[in-house]
């Protein structure tokens, strides 16, 4: 009797009991079940939801690993212990074991908490409600560590994840039924519940908060600046990063969202595998460029001068908006969440365009909170069903018109 047979016997034993969903969740990770098609099609395509979600996770892994290196790099750079990168993407200053190990040990607990707590809640709900454990959280659990600041206290993450999974998803009936993207619900909760922690210029580089505290207590060490590019632009400070730094991702920011290069590759992978919607990604990029360009024109026309508090971000070259902040990450991994996005192909164009457009608008007009993509996506999540409604009505009207032509 091999493992397969033993597990099969256990499955039969648990069948119909409260524990069945919990057991099946673990079992199906090892083995695709032996269920066969009953009525309907007797053959099925190779893909299931696990495979789909796994594809998204594969697209996220490079961002996670890069984030680990970057966490260490930003820390040691701010502390003045290493030099800035000098030779492109593969600079040795960046890809050092020292950087990685600091990031690794800092991010691993966040990852464990994210998955542990989130899946714990999922299992609990599955057992209580008697449905199978759904795969949605596999992606959410990976997204969460990538979109929080490196210095986030773990207890805060625990509270946020529980809130996000319960209120963002389970109250609606689980994966497939939710209105808001759960990962963004978690992040939004963090930012509105703990604003002093989650914004400002300290939390983005490991050690910055602690150093500030030490200084306040009389330490003579230099302060570590953890300001993000968006933060400094919002205050109309200059940016001392090159475009290439921003594109490669050698900048402070949430853990996994800094490298536009890797996000671009991840996005192309998702489009190639047909898991992510190219319509949403492309239209969101277009939307962001259009809004950014409009602001550039406003500055060029002289309506806004450098005395205005909006000047810094408005004057940012329109395509730079894609490189800084969480814009690219949001477009590729968050806006494309099929459950909360528009579900019709036409609707996806509108939905994506508005996300890009509104992101930049919020980014520019709300300097207190310089990242707009999260709010834009959450807003459009709410409007996605409305967009779909009007797209579908187009089809319905065409059908009615056809019937009228016949009877006329």
């Amino acid at each position, binding site marked *: 009797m091999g493992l397969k047979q033993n597990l099969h016997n256990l499955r039969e034993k648990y069948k119909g009991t409260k524990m069945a969903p919990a057991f099946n969740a673990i079992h199906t990770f090892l083995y695709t079940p032996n269920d066969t098609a009953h009525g309907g099609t007797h053959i099925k395509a190779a893909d299931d939801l696990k495979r789909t979600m796994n594809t998204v996770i594969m697209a996220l892994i490079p961002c996670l690993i890069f984030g680990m290196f970057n966490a260490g790099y930003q820390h040691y750079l701010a502390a003045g212990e290493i030099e800035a990168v000098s030779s492109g993407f593969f600079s040795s200053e960046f890809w050092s074991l020292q950087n990685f190990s600091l990031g690794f040990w800092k991010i691993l607990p966040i990852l464990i908490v994210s998955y542990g707590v989130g899946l714990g809640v999922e299992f609990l709900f599955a057992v209580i409600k008697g449905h199978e454990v759904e795969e949605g959280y596999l992606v959410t659990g990976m997204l969460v560590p990538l979109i929080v600041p490196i210095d986030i206290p773990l207890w805060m993450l625990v509270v946020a994840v529980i809130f996000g999974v319960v209120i963002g998803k389970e109250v609606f009936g689980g*994966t497939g039924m939710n209105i808001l993207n759960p990962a963004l619900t978690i992040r939004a909760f963090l930012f509105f519940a703990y604003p002093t922690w989650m914004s400002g210029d300290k939390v983005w580089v490991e050690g910055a908060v602690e150093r500030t505290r030490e200084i306040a207590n009389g330490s003579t060490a230099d302060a570590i600046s953890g300001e993000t590019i968006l933060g400094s632009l919002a205050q109309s400070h200059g940016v001392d990063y090159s475009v290439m730094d921003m594109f490669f991702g050698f900048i402070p920011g949430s853990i996994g969202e800094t490298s536009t290069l890797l996000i671009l590759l991840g996005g192309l992978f998702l489009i190639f595998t047909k898991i992510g919607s190219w319509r949403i990604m492309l239209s969101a990029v277009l939307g962001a460029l259009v809004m950014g360009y409009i602001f550039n024109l406003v500055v060029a026309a002289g309506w806004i001068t450098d005395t205005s508090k909006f000047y810094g971000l408005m004057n940012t070259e329109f395509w730079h908006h894609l490189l800084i902040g969480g814009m690219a990450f949001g477009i590729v991994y968050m806006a494309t969440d099929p459950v909360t996005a528009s579900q019709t192909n036409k609707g996806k164009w509108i939905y994506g365009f508005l996300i890009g457009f509104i992101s930049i608008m919020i980014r520019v007009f709300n300097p207190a909170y310089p990242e707009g993509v999260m709010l834009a996506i959450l807003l459009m999540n709410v409007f996605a069903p409305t967009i779909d409604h009007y797209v579908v009505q187009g089809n319905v009207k065409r059908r009615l018109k056809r019937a009228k032509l016949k009877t006329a």
Partner: protein
Amino acid sequence: MSKDIKIKKGLDIKLIGEAEQTVENAIVSNFYTIKPEDFHSIIPKLVAKQGTRVKAGETLFFNKDNEAMKFVSPVSGEVTEVQRGPRRRIDAIKITADKEQTYVDHGKFDLSADAEKTKAHLLASGCWSFIKQRPYDVIAKADSTPKAIFISGYASAPLAADLDFTLTGKEAELQAAVTALSKFTTGGVHISVGANSNSPLANLENATTYKVSGPHPSGNVGTLINKVNPVNKGETVWAVNAQDLVIIGELLLTGKFNPERIVALAGSSVKKPRYFRTKLGSEISTMIYDNGVERDSNDRFISGNVLSGKRVQPDGYLDYYSNVISVIPEGNDYELFGWNKPVFDKVSNTRALTFSWLTPNKKYDLSTNMNGEHRNFVLTGNYEQVFPLDIYPMQILKACLYKDLDEMEALGMYEVAPEDFALTEFVCVSKQPHQQIIRAGLDLMLEEIG
């Protein structure tokens, strides 16, 4: 006159075990079974009680709602068993066949007769059962007037019987049937044939022919209807399977109800896939074992194609409308890390570590495994890639699930049949039973709206 219909959206699922184009006579079946469940929504009133002797073409039962609509015996013999289910519902009527077949003689039909006479003739002779209607995908109501009649002469489903081959030499019967059908409608009879085919249906009179090309479901009659003249509220169209035209035609020409049919035995489990000449309702065991499958093999037997056929047991029967028996391996085994390892031996329309896109012409040996578990609807946009009708598939499925009749109607429920959703069901990552959902939705509408 012929027009072209090109389909881009769809998916050709190429399977091992396509039937070789040779016809054998199947061993003559001793027993024939007619199952009222094949005639969806018809409530049978039994005429031939157990022990009755019947001729081929003699009434077994009629439609409770319309006494004129007869359902007849495929062979002559004795009704040896009437199987009943809960509430005395008739499940099956089993006939032990005579060695020498005798037929009811309806007499040669005058093809110049008017629509009423033709209708009465088809109703009385049992041939009406081959005429289906949309909306609802049920046997046509005898008092309905179709705005058009549709026939698909192109089988694009996986492992389907090649209609060009099975209908060869039947031009006279096909023409007779089409001429008769054309009396029922002013909208014409519309026939689709393969773009590169040499179909006996291509040059019939009293019909419009369309050359269709593109991936499955280009050959589904639902696709033809949608592209030519979609069903609006309050309208009815009829559809007849091409192979059933032959039975109708023979009845009109000779007066005999002769339900003979050339059936493909296909699928990867079959040693020598080929065609058989047999009769509807016969035991499939008369075909599946000779150069077919081993006894007690772990296989799935399907009366119909692998996408929308009915599961039957090896001692089961060919159903009323099928012209293919598909046999594929049962996939009742676990697969280690089936959800994340690269897949080369299964079909997929994504590229999520599935590689069927690399080998578009490879033939696959697919089993009945679900390849995953049932989930809520999650992914969007993938149904549209395989769904050529001007309908939003996911939205209409959800409308069926929450039983909103107004929305179902608005989204085009009158136009669809379960088989139109076979491909979306195949590619569904959430493994939702689309065809079942649509059938339940249609039944609900039939009951509520009628």
